[in-house]
Structures are given as structure tokens and as C-alpha cells.
């Protein structure tokens, strides 16, 4: 009885979350049409959508599976580059930008999922900080491999080349026909990208992500994943296939990150592998941790706040990043120190029965 009510409550909360996202979209769109949204906010909409998806998908591995991932930006990178290659190479075949954006995101998600599986197989044997460092290592390797990648297109199709040993130094070394199109120029990345991303697409991606993650968490598989997080040995002893569920969480998380990456990549005219470095992974991790591990709504809010914060601090000029760092430290202390927490609890009474884990 009690349990049934709780689940109902949780499902209701899920619907409220979807409703809030849709409402946010409507409100912002209406405000934008009325001219109340300034350029700076408008420009932030798509990146915020990407970061929300990144934060929620990372929360699947870090919060729900309980494994620290320091290379999540690597999946974003795979998604961004495969998505951009897809959308640019189909530019002539498919004129509709919306369709191409959808294809880019699907391709990005698919590639990232494959890479996620490939990485997950060896990596998930490890635990804790060892796993964390291996994800970091994979993130760095992905960055350098994509840095070495050349992709061009001519009438014969796509041409690929890897500049691992200084064998390729420009797109001409791919030996393509005259008038071929360069898509990825090695370390210079994509330079002639078309801006396809829209706020609407971002919102749809957020809704899909929420749908997938929330349903996964509520499903049998989700409970198995959380059981592994809480006690792997106990989970194994009741017959849960640990590797399978770990891989599942990892691949789903990677696929969502890939789709977000494709959206992110489609938002800028230039995309470069070094954008998706260790610092980017850490930034996404910050969203997840600050929002509360395993707390999906928290991740969304943290992603929004932490993306807007550095922009909002622009008036401080030189002190901007310093203040950002101090705010970060203070927030972490305020939310995690028991003494400060009780102090805050006295001022702001916490709602009873709000569960920490979603």
C-alpha cells in the first residue's frame, strides 16, 4: 500500500518534470517573440540544453550506477564529430535542416554508444578511482585520435585518414578528386559547419533523455543497476548479471552524451576536438555532483545555474573566474558540511519526505 503510493508519487513527479520542461520552452519562446529575451540569454539556450542532457546522462553512470566517469566529454566529442560529418555529408542529399539535425543526433548517439560499449567492456572490470582514471585516459585518447582525423567528401563518398605519424598534414593527402569538400581537417577540426541546432531540438532531446533515464531507473533493469551500486556482491548473489547491467547503463549514458554532442556541434560554425577535454568532463561532473548524485532534477538545475553563472559574472571582468571558483567551493561546503547544513536547515525548513535519490 505504502509502496504503491510512493511509486505513484514518483511517477507524478516525473510528469511534473516533463511539464516543467515543456512549460519552460513555451514561456521562453513566447518571451522571445515579445522581445523580452536578450541576445546573451538566447545564445545560451542551446548550450544549456546540451549540458542538461550531458549532466543527466552522466548522472546515470555516476549517480545511479555509482561509477565515477572522468571522460564523459569524450562521448560528447564522438557524437559531435560523427554528427557533424553526417549532417555535412548529407547537405546536398537532404535539404531539410531539421531532418539533417535529427540524423546528426541519431548518428552521434549511435557512434557514441558503440564507443561506450567498446570502452565499457574492459573498463567496467575496474572499480572506484581506477575506473575513474581509465575513463580519463580514454577521454584523452579520444581527443588525440579525433585530433588526428581527416575526413573529406567527393563524388566517390567519404574519405577518412588518420594522421598518427605525420603521414597526413592536409586534406590533400586524402587523394580525393578536384573540388572535394573537407569536413574534418585534423586538429583544425570542422571549420565550415552549418548552424542547425535550435532551442526546440534541444528541448525535444531533453524530453527524450528524461524519458529514457527516468523509465530506465523505474524499470527492472534500473533497480538492478542501483542494486549493483549499493552492494555489488549482494546483487551478484541474487543472480543479477553485473557486467550486462553496468554496460547497459554505460552505453545508454554514452549514447545520450553523443546526441547532446551532435546538438552542441551543430550549434557552432567550428568544432574542435580540444573543446572536449578533461576540463569539459569535469565541468559536466560538477553539474551532476552539485545537483545531487542520482538526482535528475538537481542535475538540470545545476546545469542551468552553472552555465549562466560565468556569463552573469561578466561585469566583474578580471575577477570573474575567481568568483566562480569561490562560489563553487562555498556551495560544496554549504551543501555537504553537516554543521552548515543544520544551520541552513534551521533557516529553510526542508520538505519532509523528499527523497534524495530519484
Amino acid at each position: 500500500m505504502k509502496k504503491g503510493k510512493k511509486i505513484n508519487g514518483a511517477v507524478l513527479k516525473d510528469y511534473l518534470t516533463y511539464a516543467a520542461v515543456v512549460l519552460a520552452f513555451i514561456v521562453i519562446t513566447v518571451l522571445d517573440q515579445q522581445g523580452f529575451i536578450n541576445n546573451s540569454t538566447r545564445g545560451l539556450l542551446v548550450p544549456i540544453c546540451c549540458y542538461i542532457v550531458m549532466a543527466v546522462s552522466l548522472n546515470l553512470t555516476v549517480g545511479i550506477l555509482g561509477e565515477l566517469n572522468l571522460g564523459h566529454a569524450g562521448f560528447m566529442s564522438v557524437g559531435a564529430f560523427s554528427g557533424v560529418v553526417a549532417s555535412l555529408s548529407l547537405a546536398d542529399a537532404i535539404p531539410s535542416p531539421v531532418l539533417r539535425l535529427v540524423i546528426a543526433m541519431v548518428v552521434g548517439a549511435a557512434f557514441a554508444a558503440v564507443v561506450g560499449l567498446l570502452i565499457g567492456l574492459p573498463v567496467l572490470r575496474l572499480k572506484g578511482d581506477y575506473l575513474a582514471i581509465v575513463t580519463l585516459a580514454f577521454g584523452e585518447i579520444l581527443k588525440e585520435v579525433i585530433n588526428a582525423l581527416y575526413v573529406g567528401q567527393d563524388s566517390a563518398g567519404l574519405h577518412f585518414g588518420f594522421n598518427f605519424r605525420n603521414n597526413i598534414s592536409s586534406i590533400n593527402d586524402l587523394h580525393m578528386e578536384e573540388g572535394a569538400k573537407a569536413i574534418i581537417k585534423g586538429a583544425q577540426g570542422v571549420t565550415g559547419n552549418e548552424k542547425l541546432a535550435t532551442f526546440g531540438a534541444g528541448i525535444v532531446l531533453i524530453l527524450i533523455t528524461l524519458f529514457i533515464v527516468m523509465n530506465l531507473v523505474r524499470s527492472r533493469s534500473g533497480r538492478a543497476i542501483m542494486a549493483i551500486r549499493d552492494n555489488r556482491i549482494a546483487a551478484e548473489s541474487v543472480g543479477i548479471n553485473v557486467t550486462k547491467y553496468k554496460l547497459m547503463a554505460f552505453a545508454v549514458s554514452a549514447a545520450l552524451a553523443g546526441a547532446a554532442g551532435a546538438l552542441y556541434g551543430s550549434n557552432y560554425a567550428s568544432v574542435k576536438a580540444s573543446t572536449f577535454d578533461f576540463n569539459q568532463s569535469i565541468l559536466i561532473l560538477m553539474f551532476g555532483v552539485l545537483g545531487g548524485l542520482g538526482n535528475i532534477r538537481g542535475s538540470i538545475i545545476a546545469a542551468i545555474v552553472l552555465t549562466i553563472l560565468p556569463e552573469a559574472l561578466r561585469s566583474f571582468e578580471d575577477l570573474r573566474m575567481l568568483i566562480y571558483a569561490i562560489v563553487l567551493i562555498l556551495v560544496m561546503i554549504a551543501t555537504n558540511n553537516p554543521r552548515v547544513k543544520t544551520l541552513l536547515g534551521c533557516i529553510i525548513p526542508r520538505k519532509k519526505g523528499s527523497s534524495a535519490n530519484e
Partner: protein
Amino acid sequence: MKKNRILAVLLSMCMAMTLLAACSGGSDETQAPATDAATEAATEAAEGTEAATEAAGGDEGTGTASTASGTFKIGGIGPMTGDAAIYGTAVMNAAQIAVDEINAMGGIQFEFQPEDDEGDVERSVNAYNTLKDWGMQLLLGTVTTDPAISVSAEAYNDRMFMLTPSASSLDVIDGKDNVFQVCFTDPNQGSASAQYIAENNLATQIAVIYRNDDAYSTGIYNTFAEEAANLGLEIVYTGTFTADTATDFSVQLTDAQASGAELVFLPIYYTPAAVILTQANTMGYEPIFFGVDGMDGILTAENFDPALAEGVMLLTPFSADAEDELTQHFVSEYQSRYGETPNQFAADAYDAVYILKAALEAAGCTGDMSAEEICEALVAVMPTISVDGVTGEGMVWSETGEVNKAPMAVIIENGVYVTP
């Protein structure tokens, strides 16, 4: 930094005072303004004419409707924190000097607002949007290439006039009629370097060390390699590095030495170049080192031993040791404000502001025009104007946005640039 800003305000006030004093004194030549148009403006201001509304613009005689007036808002974008902070800071500092000088002259007025982009594409577009909210009419930036490509695409869609002091890749201006450069394009530098080496018979066996995760470095290397092959120069060794491995070059230098190269071409910025020179010195390897404009600034790195750079050659449009009045004025002003010697980035930015002024005057823009109107007007006049600045005399632009100015080969002797 804060102190610098207060200092800047004080200094600009001082300058305004000197100018006024010059007026009453009746002297004709006051400051050392950077453009012909500016000279005329200053002269006229000195003669007491009405706030330089008559300032003649187009030097090429296009000045039919050449009255520019009012206050223009210039936005600046560049990295002021992070790895590339040195370049963005130099650009913003120098641009501020130029803006203060122009404002002190009377005539058209500039408001300058620098924004930080950390050298990152996303932040750069954010900065661009923030500046649009501020009411930017002209964009000075972006300083680094990758953000510049994305920002120039935005600027093209918005019809915002964009003049980048230092983003040198062709992709920045490619297909965008409203984006212009103050610096050389990468291909231009690569082929000019190869030609210079071949013409002066500096070497036939060449080693190249370049950064292959950087558009600037790769761009120069590619055209250099092509041109070198045409000219019969042999590249005997090619070494690469990335941002993450820019701290140790012992392997590349050992290989370059083993390959018997007489000249090492370094199409890179001066920060890694300084490490290369230091480590080559430790190894006892002494080829000719040949750099490009990114190498400028090597002598300004704090505590850099100039003896290490002895004999280094570079192609650069700017030399802080140049004897001409314009450069000397700029360098001493920069030094007195910021306590550092300006590098080529700063020089390009200083020129960029004067170029904007010249273009605005040539097009007869007024401060109340919208960004789109200014953009269309400037796109029309840019190929017609010619500006003298600290990075070159008689700079002219093609319609594609490339600058045409003469690169100057210099050699470092006893810690100063000398023309060979």
C-alpha cells in the same frame, strides 16, 4: 589589473590635457597618430576647428561623403583568462590605448568593451551575444582562430562588421564579406617564409617543428611545405607537438639535429618557441631558427635570456624596436601603462582601432547608425582605404578580407631586432 584601469583613465585624461595645451600653444603636430586620416583629424582639432567633423577620410580620394561623427561602440573578444590569456590581454590593452588616443583627439568617439572568451568557441559566441546586448556596432576580434571562425559566422548572419587583429586562418574570412583581418593569413606567411629562405640561400636542408593541434601552426606549415618543394628546399625532418606536449622538445630537437638540418623553421607562437630555444641551447644544437609573426614577443617574455635568441630570424610585420615615430610612440605608451613591451598581437590591435576609425571616416558613418548600416557602409569602403600603422605602411584590403602589407624579415642580435 584594477590599478591599470585607473591608470588608464588617468593617462587618457593627461593626454586630453596635453592635447588642449597643444591647441592653445598653436602647434600643429601633437601626438603621433597612426593613420593619415587621424593626422588630419588631429591637425584640425589643433587648429581649433569644430571637433574634427571635417576629418577627411578616404586617402584614396573616395571621400565624397566623408563625414563621420558621434560615438561608436566597439566590442572586443579575446581570451583574458586561460592558456591564451597573454594574447587576449595584449589585444585589449593595445586597443584601449588606441581608443583613448582617438577619443582625446576629438572627432569621432569610441566606446570600447572587452569581453573574455577563454579561447573557447562556446564562450566566444556567448561573449559576442553579450556584446550585442551592450549595443556593439563594430567587433574587434576574435583574437584566436577557432572562436573567430564561429563568431565570424554569427557576425556574417547578423551583418556585424568584424575586424580581427590576429585570427589568421583563411577559414575566418572565407565566404564572409564583412570580416577583415589585420594580420597576415597563414598561407601568406608560409609561402613568404619559404621564399625568403630560398632567395637568401639560408639553407637547403630544413627541419620543421610545428604544433599539429593548432590551426595557425598547421596552416603555415602546409603552405610552407608546398612552397618549399617548389623552390627546391628539402624538408629533412618534420616534428610535431600538441598543446599537452609543449613542454619538452628534446626528442624533436635530437631528431632534427640527427637529420642534419641547417635551419629549423618554427611556425609557432613564442611560448613554445622559447622552450625550444632553451632546450636546444642545453643540447648544444645551434642551427638557424626561423620563425613567423607568432614568434614576435619572445624577447618580452619575462626573464628570457636574449642570448638564447641570438641569430633567430623571423618574418614579422611589427618590431617593437623600430625607429619610426609611430612605433616608438605606441611602444612607450604601452610600456608606461602596462609595464610590458607590446607584442605583435598588441600592435595588430592598436592598428585595428585606427583602421576602424579610417574606415568609418571614409564611409561617413555616424554614431546613430545601426550595426547593419555601418557594416554595409564599411564593407564597401574597406577595399578602397589605405592605412599606415605600426604593423605596416599602406595596408590595403582585398574584398575577401585579406590584408596586404609587407612582411619584414628581422634577425635578433644582442636582444634587439635588426634588419639583415
